[in-house]
């Protein structure tokens, strides 16, 4: 009786609401979005969801901007030290929000194909043209798979809007992921960001089999990766007696304990993170998922998931394992080289544009690892800058890819892009510029980013790795060049694809990608300053 009375009253930990406002806005917005989906009549959902998503991202961005203006440089730890809001967190949040905004624009676009990329059923579209039930439809869809009909017959197909809450939840999860100060929060955030992504991968109803196969693959492999992460977490808890990143770093210093648990835990943990970041050799899901997922979702994953995964990896390696980096760096060298080699060499053999960009993202992940491995301030800032630059370029690339179409949908086979410059010089010019950006040619953001990352790596004593990375950059340049050669120097095939005139949303997204790629290549000073403001806080 007495003992119970003596228990101190449970006090809620102090919460710095201003600091975590962007995160709260996005997650709250996602919940409202679910309610919209449940209660709004069908025809009102698309405008409501689009308006809500844009509003949420904008409000979160404003909240972020307001807080960043007065944020302490040292950063703060809040929510019972579950979240860290420091310079890198703010930069990554900003990056995620702007990239998420661009992706949402691509997702919301309905001008490129009737009903947008997320219709209820492809058969609906076929039956608009032909009498229902008489033919199998021109797209070769199995007649047995006639989905339940939505809307009035003969009406143009409408967009399924459940993708918006999914994307908002994923975005919120990513923001929590990069800010997590302990491994348990990180794991929860990992699941919050992953589960919606598994689902949205399967939403390409016009190519259901490919899309659903991608979703299942992503889910199964992702579940494995999560298990790895969790097991690593358990080992590290066993070693340090805490899941806090700082506590792990403290425990690793000057202790007589065996390192087996520490490095075993690190290895498993990092495998989970590398999987999300599609770093080779943990990349095997990437090409299939990139190809199968609806293109706007691919853009979202390529841009934002990479930011989230590398943001978290940066925090884990720098805060928890910075002091022991001599022990694990050798292994990470091998991973980085493997990733660059796999991405660059296998990218050469691809014939599908989306798969090619997937391998390119594997190669870029290898380059990013160079920055992550440099346990210096430059290492952090250069990685942050690289993530932003790469995200925008790749967003633009997928925006362009979604515009080149045949009657059967997107024309992603390389041969279909032959001679595109003749029919659509502006689109070909935009694509060329973005590809040169991915290749890292000067005056594009890709070059500035590569320069920043490589000079950070060289400054931290990784000269051989930098030389290897530059050689693989040259190899990777070949497959970007191949697309340019096809577009400009080849003859147009007879039944080539058409280039859709994009609506406002896609135009804005692609323009954003191009402008940022150019600006960060020519005048990156401001953004480099932001990326370098404040280090990681443990």
């Amino acid at each position, binding site marked *: 009786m007495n003992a119970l009375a003596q228990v101190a009253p449970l006090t809620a930990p102090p919460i710095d609401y201003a600091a975590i406002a962007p995160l709260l806005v996005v997650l709250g917005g996602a919940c409202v979005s679910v309610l919209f989906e449940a209660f709004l009549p069908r025809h009102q959902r698309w405008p409501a969801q689009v308006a809500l998503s844009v509003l949420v991202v904008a409000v979160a961005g404003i909240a972020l901007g307001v807080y960043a203006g007065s944020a302490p440089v040292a950063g703060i730890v809040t929510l019972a030290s579950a979240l860290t809001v420091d310079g890198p967190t703010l930069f990554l949040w900003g990056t995620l929000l702007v990239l998420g905004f661009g992706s949402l624009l691509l997702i919301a676009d309905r001008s490129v194909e009737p009903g947008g990329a997320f219709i209820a059923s492809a058969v609906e579209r076929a039956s608009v043209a032909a009498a229902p039930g008489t033919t199998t439809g021109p797209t070769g869809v199995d007649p047995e798979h006639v989905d339940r009909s939505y809307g009035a017959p003969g009406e143009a197909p409408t967009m399924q809007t459940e993708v918006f809450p999914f994307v908002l939840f994923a975005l919120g999860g990513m923001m929590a992921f990069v800010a997590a100060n302990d491994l348990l929060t990180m794991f929860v955030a990992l699941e919050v960001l992953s589960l919606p992504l598994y689902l949205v991968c399967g939403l390409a109803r016009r190519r259901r089999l490919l899309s659903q196969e991608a979703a299942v693959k992503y889910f199964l492999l992702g579940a494995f990766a999560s298990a790895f992460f969790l097991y690593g977490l358990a080992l590290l808890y066993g070693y340090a007696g805490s899941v806090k990143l700082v506590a792990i770093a403290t425990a690793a210093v000057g202790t007589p304990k065996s390192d087996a648990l520490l490095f075993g835990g690190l290895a498993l943990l990092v495998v989970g993170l590398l999987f999300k970041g599609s770093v080779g050799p943990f990349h095997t899901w990437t090409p299939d998922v990139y190809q199968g997922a609806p293109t706007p979702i691919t853009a979202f994953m390529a841009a934002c998931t990479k930011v989230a995964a590398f943001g978290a990896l940066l925090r884990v390696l720098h805060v928890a394992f910075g002091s022991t980096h001599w022990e694990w760096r050798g292994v990470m060298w091998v991973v980085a080289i493997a990733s660059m080699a796999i991405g660059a060499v296998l990218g050469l053999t691809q014939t599908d544009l989306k798969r090619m960009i997937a391998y390119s993202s594997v190669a870029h992940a290898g380059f990013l690892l160079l920055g992550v491995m440099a346990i210096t301030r430059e290492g952090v800032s250069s990685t942050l800058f690289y993530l932003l630059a790469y995200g925008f370029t790749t967003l633009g690339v997928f925006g362009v890819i979604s515009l080149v179409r045949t009657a059967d949908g997107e024309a992603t086979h390389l041969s279909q892009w032959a001679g595109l410059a003749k029919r659509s010089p502006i689109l070909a010019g935009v694509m060329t510029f973005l590809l040169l950006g991915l290749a890292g*040619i000067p005056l594009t953001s890709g070059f500035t980013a590569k320069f920043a990352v490589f000079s950070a790596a060289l400054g931290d004593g990784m000269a051989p790795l930098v030389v290897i990375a530059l050689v693989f950059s040259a190899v990777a340049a070949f497959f970007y*060049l191949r697309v340019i050669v096809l577009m400009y120097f080849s003859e147009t095939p007879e039944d080539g694809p058409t280039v859709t005139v994009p609506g406002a949303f896609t135009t804005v997204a692609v323009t954003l990608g191009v402008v940022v790629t150019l600006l960060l290549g020519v005048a990156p000073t401001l953004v480099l300053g932001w990326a370098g403001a404040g280090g990681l806080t443990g």
Partner: protein
Amino acid sequence: MNTAVMNTAVMNTAPDTGGNVMLLVLLLLPVLGALLMYPLRTNVPLAKAVAMATALLEFVLVVVTWVGYSTDAASSGERFQYVFSVPWIPAFGTHLAFGIDGIALVMIALTAFLVPGLMLFAWAEKLPEGRTASGYFALLLATQATLMGVFTATDVFLFYVFFEAMLIPMYFLIGRFGGPNRQYASVKFFLYSLLGGLIMLASLIGLYVTSADQLGAGTFTWSDLQSIAQSTPTSTQIWLFLGFFVAFAIKAPLVPFHTWLPDAGAEAPIVAAVLLVGVLDKVGTFGFLRYCLPLFPQASQVLAPLVLVLAVIGIIYGALLAVGQKDMSRFVAYTSIAHFGFIALGTFAFSSQAFAGATLYMVNHGLSTGMLFVMVGLLVARGGSRLMSDYGGVSKLAPLLAGCLLLAGMSSLALPGTNSFVSEFLVLVGSFPREPVATIIATVGIIFAALYILWFYQQTMQGPVRGNAVIRALEAGGVGGPGAMIDPAVAAERGSGFPDLTKREIGVLAPLIVVIVVLGFFPGPVLDVINPSVQSTITEVGLPDPVPAGGVVGGVR
């Protein structure tokens, strides 16, 4: 967030307040011209006129620059003139910094001199289907702009940016307007150069990190980097040197790195080939003189024997392969490889005469090879074939053309009285005191040069009228074979099957001929501009000049 964290490099020699904008104008004018081509793409005659006006204005401005360049100031130790500098990316310590020394001045003068003539050459060229002349001229102007940038940059980062950017317009020139095998050639050109550039980037970053160690803050300003060159350990220098060297050796090209040049040179349209071999490849040898030697002096001396071996191999090997070529464009490309060997020999012989000779050689080679390529282009325009064996006895049909070809050939084999003689002689005389063996072997190359040029002339110009292309052209009465590049409308006006030079073609060739002959007798004005900068380079390398000042350099004047 605050931006105060950025480390602004406070250096002694990087004024950040701007300066003389002349070089900036020289850089931006062709860019403007190239951009104007887009709105003018439907009005081809106007587009051509605007492009030509831009190129002529650029040439006038370069002449003004030349007149304003003070050799006295250069002799008294002012390394760069027309200096302009503003900070670009403070976090990396880069500047938009421009400035020229005598070596850069003669290179931009060469570029500005060649481009209007090339445009005149391209005036009536028949382009591949679906390509417009405005696009062609826009790419020419873009190439010119990047060349201006690469020669005038005094910030190593900025130099690198132009060095890579230079590839893109040239890549499209070859790939869109070139010969039948153009895709292969353009991709090979791009990848080779990109690989070299990326290896250089590794060295560039290494240089930056070294400068951060020594100066406290990383910098790319050339003069700051030069000031720490002597205190950098030789072992570090060697690694950094190799990175730059590979990039420049690919660009130049020296022998094991040369295989892209015959393909690119042969498949490129003639105007692009002239710019490629005449000027763009000189960025490699220019890079040796401006970056490799002054920034890594000890490494240059340690590795000079290696470079000299490559240079001498290039002279002999290029000449031998030139003898065996059947394709005229490939032939000219291989003669260039031999000539680049001479330039590299002069550069790594470390004497003021050899340096001056190598620099002058860069200009002269641009002129004589440029003219040789133009002559090949004129032949191909008539016959429609690049094969040497398709031509014969042309001097009977087109004596003017044959005469010009002979002059171009004589200039290329360095006959006394032509421009190239002066430079080749200076290189050999200047190299002998330090490198007698290499010089003697290189001398053999002169004999080969006479062999391949005379052989080429004899096969195509002398003897009875023969060869498929010539016969076909005569029979057709107008334009020749299937690949003939001349506009049929122009050909119809001419009447004859294998016409002699037209007025426009004479207009292209006349300035070249005048300069080739004048520089053969009076190289003084050019040498006066080059010499002070060459002396500075010698000082920066830190080796004593083996030939006393006022030696042969003064005598040739």
